[in-house]
């Protein structure tokens, strides 16, 4: 959802789930990330207002954690493992394959907002190398010719 379409009516229910206490800041930001696919500026400002703290501290947290993002991410998040085992078994080819199919490289989002691509360092499933995870679903021994089929199936699907 683009920033200008987000209203305080969208944000307030996320805030009200938690008491007004600074220790809930991270939990609320995680909820926002899940709800909007990113943390909108309005959300961060509303949160600072709600908790009675400075926006600088929240901004610091939001930029510190990798699971939080200040820019919109795709509806489906593709994580390609580029750890040692996956790297040797062709993770780089997989990334260029995704680039061909979806037209995005690492840390980018497709124009329709469906997919975003991230490179991670190890997913702990080296026996399945090269591994790709989309929305917490594991795909092992992925070959580039399987990619269009996987993404087409996901495109129609609702977000989990």
């Amino acid at each position, binding site marked *: 959802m683009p920033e200008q379409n987000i209203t305080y009516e969208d944000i307030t229910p996320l805030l009200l789930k938690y008491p007004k206490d600074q220790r809930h800041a991270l939990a609320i930001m995680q909820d926002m990330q899940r709800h909007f696919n990113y943390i909108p*500026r309005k959300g*961060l400002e509303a949160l600072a207002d709600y908790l009675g703290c*400075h*926006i*600088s*501290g929240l*901004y*610091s947290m939001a*930029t*510190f954690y990798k699971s939080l993002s200040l820019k919109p991410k795709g509806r489906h998040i593709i994580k390609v493992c580029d750890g040692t085992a996956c790297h040797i078994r062709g993770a780089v080819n997989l990334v260029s394959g995704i680039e061909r199919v979806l037209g995005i490289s690492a840390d980018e989002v497709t124009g329709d907002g469906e997919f975003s691509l991230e490179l991670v360092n190890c997913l702990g499933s080296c026996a399945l190398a090269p591994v790709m995870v989309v929305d917490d679903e594991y795909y092992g021994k992925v070959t580039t010719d399987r990619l269009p089929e996987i993404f087409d199936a996901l495109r129609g699907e609702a977000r989990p």
Partner: protein
Amino acid sequence: MLIKIDGKECGCKHGEFILEVAKRNGIEIPNLCHHEGLPGQGCCRVCIVEVEINGWRNIVTACVYPLERECEVFTNSPRVIKQRAMVLALLHSLAPGSSEVSELCEKYNVPSYRRFVKKNDTKCILCGLCAKACESLGTGAISTVNRGTGKAVTTPYGEPSYECVGCASCAKVCPTGAIMVEEGAGSRKIWGKKIPLLKCKKCGEPAGTYMELRRAAEKLGEGMPELCEACRKKEIAEKLASIYGY
């Protein structure tokens, strides 16, 4: 309690930090991120010393190490010299533009390591003292953002902060003078924000930014101050002198 620092006997209280005791006894321990008004930052690691307790020797950070039992402290043991040189070399590669860091490097004969790549000419050592000062003054306009190699100190979204009052406390506590403050005719520019300065009614020198003085006045519940700090002190001194008949 008695401890020994470099062979000198020093009295100290339980829980006091080594750096304070050393300073009181005239023993120099170099440091960058320590500020008396904002203790406990403990991140530049320049003030490392070696502590010996019951024959066990350990490298500790003098500014945050509380003294709990009798011990002997060495501020210039071979281990300290070696590790401090490495800390300083790393800080120098992080902030090659800082004269404070290069002076320390020179003073402690730090060799230049070719494997440490100097990326830019910044002065900031990322100690975060500025953000701590801003936060503890209740302004909270700046903070450290990102992490790892991308870590930096900025305002939210890198834009001029509406919370910043331009008090320049961040620049005052900065150990390496990394924060830019431009004071021009009638205004001060800091963190990309220009704030008008208020002039002292007596001497005409700038007394502070309009916003910081208003904030201070609100907190104290007084009217806007009309004099700069120097003139205010002078006025109080004159008042006291006339009361006591000097």
